[in-house]
């Protein structure tokens, strides 16, 4: 799974069925200490994450389809958690 920071939402009325009615979160990928890694993902929200929050992003199709309980969903990135804190024994 990846760590991300929610930096916005994508509004879309014309989309594949699996996305309708779901919030699409624009997430910067970040490292354990919150440093931007340069990449980003649009992830389907499943935990009600808000803008500015650090989140846990699952980026694998089969698991995403299970989380969404939608066997045919063309979805890979799903927000599955809101991070409260990250404790590091050593900086990566």
């Amino acid at each position, binding site marked *: 799974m990846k760590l991300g920071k*929610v*930096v*916005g*939402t*994508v*509004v*879309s*009325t*014309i*989309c*594949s069925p*699996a*996305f309708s009615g779901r919030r*699409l979160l*624009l997430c*910067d990928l970040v490292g354990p200490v919150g440093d931007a890694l340069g990449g*980003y*993902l*649009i*992830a389907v929200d499943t935990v009600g994450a808000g*803008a*500015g929050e650090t989140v846990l992003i699952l980026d694998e*199709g089969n698991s995403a389809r299970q989380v969404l309980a939608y066997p*045919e*969903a*063309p*979805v*890979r*990135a799903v927000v599955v958690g809101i991070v409260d804190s990250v404790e590091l024994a050593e900086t990566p």
Partner: protein
Amino acid sequence: MRLARVIGTVVATQKAPGLEGVKLLILQPLDRRRRPSGRPVVAADAVAMAGPGETVYFVASREAALACPEPFVPVDHAVVGIVDAVEELGEADR
């Protein structure tokens, strides 16, 4: 899943079975601030509504095949939605 801008369409009469009837678009992938980033790709239009100039979001690999209506369509990228707006966090809220 990432953002892209539709910059064109591809017509190919001679193509693999399973690709018939699949509308092919040329996408310029975008970074999070909607600036071009990376090489253009040809993607199936799974929502069949995206036209040149529009900002869309697309999926790759197995999810692209799943996005297309047919049981199995041999594509590696597919547009799964058209972007109406991207509401970004204000600089102050970061």
